[in-house]
């Protein structure tokens, strides 16, 4: 079933240079294919180029090179008001001299829609954001969360081809944010509009998006579904940007085998460059993927021996810092009756199954097509 009102977006080698005298680029060859109805989050630290990318799609910045295609047709050079793209800004940008209903009606008025149609659409959208009785209020009479929902309704009022959101929850507190994330997700699912969401909050990106694109220094480092990007990062930057990661200095000894502090540990083999035997590398393993066992319970030669440096009880889990040689390995253990607990100074063995560990390169070098990043850097 192809709905003609759902559109796709393609970014092709998109580049933005602000100052032509220096070769410092805000965006360096970003390529990304976003399918109809897909929800993609651009995730990255500030200065990674994610907002600049969004502004180029919106039409407020012209790309220096590259192309932006909606349904296969280039929109580069088209004025923003002709693009039919709904945008939710970080500070909402609700027009202060207009009521909520007038704000939502604005894009319809600009399109010279009939009065009756405008009234019906506004009522439908107020229902959608669950604020039916707020039409006559002014933006400064609303809470931050309400303003955010009105901004979303206004951006959706004209059935835009794309919905872009630029850190829309940056100004809200955590609890409200979680609530609104579910709301945004529900509305996006309901309307099926193709959505690009810019954020620096990794949890928000993983909660909302079908796919997450991790950006760093103007490039996309990796694109993929949240679980894939989290579990199989292609490089150290992605590993450390998402959640907590142990990156233990190691030396690859054989395919799927690495040496850490004189002990051989397994890792998942997936053919990336940093895995040639003899090379020194970083062994990646998430804290929750490591199991601790008392040192005397295992035959020697299995696992990695260490000493508990300290333990922090945080309710549902306990966080251990375990000293292995010169390094500290973070371990998160769920608290369940019957499982062993450890105290500072205890000798332990660290264990993980091979598929939870991998060897990572520092960062992908040079421009490379993000679509090739089906989990991995090109060799």
């Amino acid at each position: 079933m192809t709905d003609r009102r759902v559109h796709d977006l393609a970014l092709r080698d998109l580049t933005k240079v602000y100052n032509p005298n220096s070769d410092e680029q805000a965006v360096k060859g970003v390529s990304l294919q976003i399918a109809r109805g897909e929800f993609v989050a651009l995730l990255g630290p500030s200065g990674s180029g994610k907002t600049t990318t969004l502004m180029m799609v919106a039409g407020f910045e012209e790309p220096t090179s590259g192309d932006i295609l909606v349904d296969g047709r280039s929109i580069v050079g088209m004025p923003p008001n002709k693009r039919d793209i709904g945008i939710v800004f970080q500070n909402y940008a609700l027009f202060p001299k207009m009521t909520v209903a007038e704000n939502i009606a604005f894009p319809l008025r600009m399109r010279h829609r009939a009065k009756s149609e405008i009234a019906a659409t506004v009522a439908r959208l107020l229902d959608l954001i669950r604020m039916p009785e707020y039409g006559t209020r002014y933006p400064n009479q609303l809470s931050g969360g309400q303003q955010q929902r009105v901004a979303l309704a206004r951006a959706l009022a004209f059935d835009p081809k794309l919905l872009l959101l630029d850190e829309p929850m940056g100004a809200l507190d955590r609890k409200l944010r979680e609530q609104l994330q579910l709301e945004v997700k529900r509305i996006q699912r309901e309307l099926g509009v193709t959505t690009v969401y810019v954020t620096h909050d990794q949890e928000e990106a993983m909660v909302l998006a079908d796919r997450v694109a991790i950006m760093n220094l103007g490039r996309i480092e990796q694109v993929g579904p949240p679980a894939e990007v989290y579990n199989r990062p292609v490089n150290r930057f992605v590993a450390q940007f998402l959640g907590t990661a142990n990156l233990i200095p190691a030396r690859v000894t054989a395919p799927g085998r690495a040496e850490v502090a004189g002990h051989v540990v397994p890792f998942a083999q997936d053919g990336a460059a940093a895995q040639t035997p003899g090379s020194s590398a970083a062994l990646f393993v998430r804290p929750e993927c490591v199991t601790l066992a008392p040192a005397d319970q295992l035959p020697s030669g299995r696992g990695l021996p260490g000493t508990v440096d300290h333990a922090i009880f945080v309710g549902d889990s306990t966080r251990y810092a375990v000293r292995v040689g010169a390094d500290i390995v973070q371990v998160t253990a769920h608290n369940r009756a019957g499982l062993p607990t450890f105290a500072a100074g205890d000798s332990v063995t660290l264990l993980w199954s091979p598929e939870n560990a991998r060897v990572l390169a520092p960062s992908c070098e040079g421009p490379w097509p993000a679509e090739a990043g089906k989990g991995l850097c090109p060799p």
Partner: protein
Amino acid sequence: MRQSRLALALLLAPVLAFLTAILFYPLALMVERSFTDPAPGVGNYVRIVDVPVYLRIFWTTFQVSGIVTLVCLLLGYPIAYAAANRGPAMRLFLLAAVMMPFWTSLLVRTYAWIVILGAEGPIALAWRAWLGEEPPQMLYTRFSAVIGMVYVMLPYMVLSLFAVMSEIDPNYHRAARSLGAGPFRAFRHVYLPQSMAGVTGGVLLVFIVSTGFFVTPSLLGGRKEVFIAELIQVNLQEIIDWGFSSALAVALLVFTMLLLFLYDRLLRNESVFAAGLSRGRR
């Protein structure tokens, strides 16, 4: 509660004492004098209404002030807009250019206009050279009075507009554009309404100050461009009629306040007072 109120009273006391001594007391004296000098009654006010020339002077004052305000608004709006929206270099240049006249004395600036607009000034010379005919009388007309006053008042208008415009987030314009408004409609529906607080403030400021002008219309204007301030000065220093001078001053005050009240009514939403409130709320 009691203590904080006392503290507030103590904090306000100096400024209240100052205002009472400098403003309210003399104002009260003036109002009293207008009703008692030379004889008790409303004689001074009857005289203002009865003698056509006085009413005409009031009309001239308000009319010229109105024109000056309008010209300042039309010239000042684009300047303030560019200063607020076209980058830091443009802002520095425009604000410096607008503020420059403040560094020179009012009298010097006024005489400069006499030279520029005079019969042997650069404009007149250029007119004769290119068009080969006598230029029209520019100096000592309403035209020259308006030019001189606009020159003095423009910075007030620009600064008042700029203060409001520089607070308008550029994302409003972007939002309007993304929602389907072209550049003009984005300005008309989103920017202009938000800048109205600055327009109101600038218009009030320029108009009120203009009605009290003395030097500029007196030196640059023609015989017909007599302002109330000039009439008051003549009555005060030459005729020495303190009662009538007071009545003229009170009448100017009342007329001006009446006009301001009407203006505020006209622009209910954009009232300076409402603008102050909404800004305070943020």
